[in-house]
């Protein structure tokens, strides 16, 4: 059965970017406001799922040629790397560092290694959700 979902597809293309931007905002806001890597990752996956619903797996895979399994690995590497990185500086596993740093364009920015860890969470969540959805979706 061929369905006509022009309206869904057109809206999804726009809404997708709005959701992604919101997800990135959630990720960065995490330390001070509601949000964080977990929600951000889920939200990003939500945006991708929306595309999956509007189009089909093959089209989306062509648009985002990402192997989500590898994303899981990268995410875990970030998380464990941040935690283990503390050992190099002779402080216990998982010690975080933070401080205010002056960056061009952004100005005075507060940076925190917890964000690197959260980036790991973010990537793992996207990787896992999308891996599961893709494999189940493909297995028809």
């Amino acid at each position, binding site marked *: 059965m061929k369905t006509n979902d022009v309206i869904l597809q057109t809206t999804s293309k726009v809404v997708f970017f709005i959701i992604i931007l919101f997800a990135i905002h*959630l990720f960065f*806001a*995490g*330390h*001070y*406001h*509601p*949000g*964080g*890597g*977990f*929600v951000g990752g*889920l*939200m990003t*996956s*939500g945006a991708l*799922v929306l595309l*999956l*619903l509007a189009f089909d797996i093959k089209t989306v895979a062509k648009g985002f040629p990402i192997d989500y*399994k590898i994303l*899981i*690995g990268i*995410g*875990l590497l970030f*998380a*464990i790397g941040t*935690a283990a990185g503390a*050992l*190099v500086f*002779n402080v*216990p*596993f*998982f010690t*975080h560092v*933070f401080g205010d740093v002056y960056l061009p364009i952004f100005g005075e920015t*507060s940076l*925190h290694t*917890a964000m690197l*860890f*959260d980036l*790991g*969470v973010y990537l*793992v*969540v996207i*990787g*896992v*959700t999308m*891996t*599961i*959805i893709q*494999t*189940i*979706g493909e*297995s*028809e």
Partner: protein
Amino acid sequence: MSLLHLAIFSPFLMAIFVPFLYKGLKSIHTGWFVLALPILLFTYFIGFLPITRNNGTVEKSFDWIPSLGIHFTAYVDGLGLLFALLITGIGALVVLYSIFYLSKEKESLHNFYVYLLLFMGAMLGVVLSDNLITLYMFWELTSISSFLLIAYWYDRERSRYGALKSMLLTVFGGLSMLGGILLLSIMGDTFSIRELISQAGELNQHPLFLFALILILLGAFTKSAQFPFYIWLPDAMEAPTPVSAYLHSATMVKAGIYLVARLSPIFAFSSYWFWIVGAIGIFTMFWGSFNAVKQTDLKGILAFSTVSQLGLIMSLLGVGAAALHFDTLNDNIYIAAVIAAVFHLINHATFKGSLFMVVGIVDHETGTRDIRKLGGLLSFMPVTFTIAVIGAFSMAGLPPFNGFLSKEMFFTGMIQLVNLDLFNLETWGMLFPILAWIGSIFTFIYSMMFVFKTFSGKYQPEKLDKKPHEAPVGMLISPIILAFLVVLFGLFPNLLSYSLIQPAAAAIVPSLVGPGELLDVHISHWHGFNPELWMTIGVIAVGTLMYLTLSKWIKLYALFPGKVTLNALYDTSLYAAERGSYTLTKAYMNGFIRTYLVYIFAFFIGILGFTMWTRQALTIDTSNLAPIGVYEIVLVVIITAGIFTILFAKSRLTSIIALGAVGYTVSLFFVIFRAPDLALTQLVIETVSVALFLLCFYHLPKLNRHEERMGFKLGNLIISLGVGAVISLMAISAHSNKMFESIASFYVENTYKEAAGKNMVNVILVDFRGFDTLFEISVLAIAGLGIFGLIKLRLAKKGEEADEN
């Protein structure tokens, strides 16, 4: 983190680059890159010699888990350094040898060198750690890398069998050892070996002492292939020959000996230690050599020979424990056994390493290791023959090679036992020298078999796959170096005595060596016509006679029943365990998800309900409840409506959407209770999981509510009501019971101060309870990959079946 730590970790770091080197530079054998590391490490460790020479030590520490008293303390003393030099020295030779043994076109070299480096690092960690937990971690890592290396040719059934066997036995021992370590730490309140040694006197009186002793010895005996655990070592010979030379003769199997030597100062005062280590060692020495004679595979002979030689060193350490019962060094003749153990450890590494390499050459150039097919290779391989003669004669204990000297010292140690008036030795003590002597005769016989069945006798070209010729020069370098050392140490043993042997022996008996003192380890060739010399002459005479009449009495071995061996015991018990657990699992795993859910929920209701009832935890306190507003009532109505829709829906699609509605309503509750993070997460989770459900929708069978039996429905009803009741009661009780101060105030205070964040939920996730998150995402990753594997596997199978049809 010091240079010493870096040296221990460097093999692991190197291992990361090996696959890239293998992929990127295919034209060069990966071994050449790897070779640089052990050479570098060897020269680095040589640099410690001047320090340990005078019994000095080096210690570098960094905290690993300080709250549990676990530090990574790298500690170099004579004993540790001796092993480190063996590991890196033999390691370099083995890597060099492997370059010519493993072809770069056919073999998956990246796997091989990654495993080998993994082992090298782990082994260095074992011998240079002062903290028992660190030692244990590296210890298990050596078992794992050994497993991987034995199964290197994993398409062979025997390789997998051997790998599994070694893994099961050594990990069993390793776990026992962990138990022993924990008992020691309970007794001494520390994981540091040196601190435990300083408390040795008090530890001896502790009621847990004997348990710790036995558990630790289990670890050492399984690793060092002592009777009755030796059965894994002959099967480990399925590994590539360089691995056998390195792990299964020169280094890894000596980890158990290292452990016994290292912990001797703690345990040696116990008569149990003396008897167990000494008796098991000497019996293993006899049993290994006795069984080696009946082998027809060259590697099989060497495997049993290794078992036997390990037993020899082990028994010397056991006997050497007697030395600690005397306070002074003067007239302390039992120290000779400790010195002999260290000396033989070095000698064994040299001659056995070269012999393994000889077997590798023979195998490589003729295509077989079966002595029934080999013979007359002398004219084809004169160099290999020379090396074999040197190695085997040293193993047999013939002058002028180094094995002769340590064998004499071994006899000395055993004979002196007879005069010892400790531990009731008058009665059974005589058995030690007798078993030692008989074992040595068999050692002599299999050494002769090794040389003469291979290189002399009749050449049988029809039984060989290839036309034999001398090995390439590269393959000969390593065994030649080892054979040269055999001769060198045989002629000038005192090159070693004060540089390596004295510091190592002093580390085994630290209480005897005062500051500034050195043990007397002068080794000489000639002691006059003493009993040891007569024993050696006897070994040669009887051994020669028995070797010449070998064909007449070899049939005696057939008298041993094949069904009561230790191997048969291992196989049947493994089979029984597999069958048993399979039957047991089959009994309750019937493949229906509903059944599993019933188990889970029934346990849930049972355990929680029971606990609440027995603990009388059920309290309902209505004093501090917030007023119920109109929003809450509306939401509850919506949830109830949603739940009933799910229960009575005719199609699955309706159920899924209703379930989504319930989830969204719950997130609205979070909004009302001012928990934006939870609300947000719940909303997104709900969205994604509804989408997932819709995807799975295709694969599920049609919802059918008509054919269900009444009992089935009733069961579901009871369980769901039970779960609902238990959860509600628990939630109410949790609210009503205030057992202690809420932890919330801690987070309110410290979120900004300690972690510089303003969103408490997120700070808890990434910082305060970061470990939880780390493990959660790991579990998530495993689940994701698991689902991928399950579905892809099923699809692949379907594809195969379709092809067949």
